[in-house]
């Protein structure tokens, strides 16, 4: 396998919270163009990993390389600008903005870091067409003018996904995209992830093993902050250590 096959790589990534090691010496290698799942019992350190990769948290030790470039010292907004865009475990939308405006906030990023407070927001109308397309892609175009806070839970997650895709990220990090959803919504979001993953790389935390089995090319199992196993679904589900980790602590 060629070296530049990896879009993101970590080396000895660790995070300590006041003496407690939440992430221990994690070596991750996310191959370009794949869907990579990060699974593990609650408290395993999955969200912390996401926070480290996107620099919302500073690692205690270890290095992160994206597209061959060391990004360990960058700030979160810089990481996002390079093309790593994350979603959050708790759905993150801009509540008082409409669905359309939510997506537009992402689209207007291409104007650069602009502090033009004297300009009318009518310049943003140029993005309306693209924003509606994205809302349509996730099936909520009818809600374009509705404040995000008033959307149903599944619609919020769909909106979050549309906002994330709007940035055309090279690497998407999705933290439990189907958590708390009804079965139809899960199916729909899974299909959506599969669809938007084309031409991109996705790293996702997911508890729904059916979704994991269906979507992921590679699975990394995390337990107590450490990588327990890695492989495809067949390998992982046959691994006795993985079964033990899941039985040993409550799956959630």
């Amino acid at each position, binding site marked *: 396998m060629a070296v530049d096959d990896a879009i993101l790589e970590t080396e000895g990534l660790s995070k300590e919270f006041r003496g407690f090691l939440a992430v221990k010496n994690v070596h991750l290698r996310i191959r370009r163009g794949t869907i990579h799942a990060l699974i593990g019992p609650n408290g395993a350190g999955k969200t912390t990993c996401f926070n480290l990769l996107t620099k919302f948290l500073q690692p205690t030790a270890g290095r992160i390389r994206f597209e061959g470039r060391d990004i360990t010292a960058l700030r979160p*907004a810089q990481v996002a600008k390079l093309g790593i865009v994350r979603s959050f475990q708790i759905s993150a939308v801009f509540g008082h903005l409409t669905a359309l405006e939510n997506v537009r906030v992402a689209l207007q990023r291409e104007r650069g870091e602009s502090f033009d407070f004297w300009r009318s*927001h009518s310049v943003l109308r140029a993005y309306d067409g693209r924003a509606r397309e994205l809302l349509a892609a996730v099936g909520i175009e009818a809600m374009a003018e509705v404040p995000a806070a008033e959307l149903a839970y599944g619609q919020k997650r769909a909106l979050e996904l549309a906002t994330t895709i709007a*940035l055309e990220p090279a690497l998407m990090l999705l933290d439990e995209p189907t958590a708390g959803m009804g079965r139809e919504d899960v199916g729909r979001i899974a299909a959506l992830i599969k669809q938007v993953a084309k031409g991109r790389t996705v790293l996702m935390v997911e508890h729904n093993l059916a979704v994991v089995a269906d979507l992921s090319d590679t699975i990394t199992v995390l337990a107590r902050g450490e990588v327990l196993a890695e492989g495809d679904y067949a390998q992982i589900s046959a691994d006795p250590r993985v079964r033990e980790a899941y039985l040993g602590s409550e799956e959630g």
Partner: protein
Amino acid sequence: MAVRSEPAAIRAATGTGNGLRHHQLGMALLAAALVFAPLVLYPVFLMKVLCFALFACAFNLLVGYVGLLSFGHAAFFGTAAYAAGHAAKVWGLPPELAVLFATACSAVLGLAFGWLAIRRQGIYFAMITLALAQMLYFFYLQAPFTGGEDGIQAIPRGRLFGLIDLANDLVMYWVVLAVFFAGFLLIYRTIHSPFGQVLKAIRENEPRAVSLGYDTDRYKLVAFTLSAALSGLAGGTKAIVFRLASLTDVHWTMSGEVVLMALVGGLGTVFGPIVGAAVVVSLQNYLAGLGHWVTIVQGLIFVACVLAFRRGIVGELARLVGKPL
């Protein structure tokens, strides 16, 4: 994920951006009211309302649209009052340059305070702004150029552009009205600019804005500086109008008053701070005879107001008509 068809009312209530005709209508009404107001009300009273209305609008830009609650905004208002007073009286600058200088001083101060404060969140942000403003208060208490307890008195109003004598209250009123509208429109534009859209996103969910690649600290700093500068515009104008800059202008109670005005009128509303300023200034005028009791009565009215109208006067009104005001 069934797509439910939403009632038109929700759509109307959000009134997002496009057009906002009722805002234009509101502004036209406001302008008309302020043009004819001197026929029934004293210009001096009106000028006081306008200066504080601008101050409250500048404050609201920060708390209402970025979600940053500053407890130290008197620092910017008062600094500008001193700066304008000093420039007009000691340096003999014409009023427009004195106010411009005052605004610039507050902008620089805002940049410095903002830089120190914006890294903190919530109550810590409020406490740091309060602490910085208090330090500045004690500095002005000691500094020779502020005149200590006396303040800077008898500041000359001078001639605008060297031509128009501002000694006449009505003439002064038209100038203040123009300054107010310029400031108000700039704030309105800011709220409805692409930049303002990012500010609202930060207010709603800062981590999400960061994850989309926005360097939120820089946006907050620009907003803070802008708010400080406009507070300075209000403070500098006030010093020229009342020919006085004093410790009252930098005191923490002044910071409290602007919070009160924004709250009473409605945080995060376009017209709320103006209504709030009018209410608070009127109350102070009517209650002036009560001496020290003013603060207590004002406090009681404030509590009643907040209990009765949680969103402030204009905020509640906006809910009634189903449009953002």
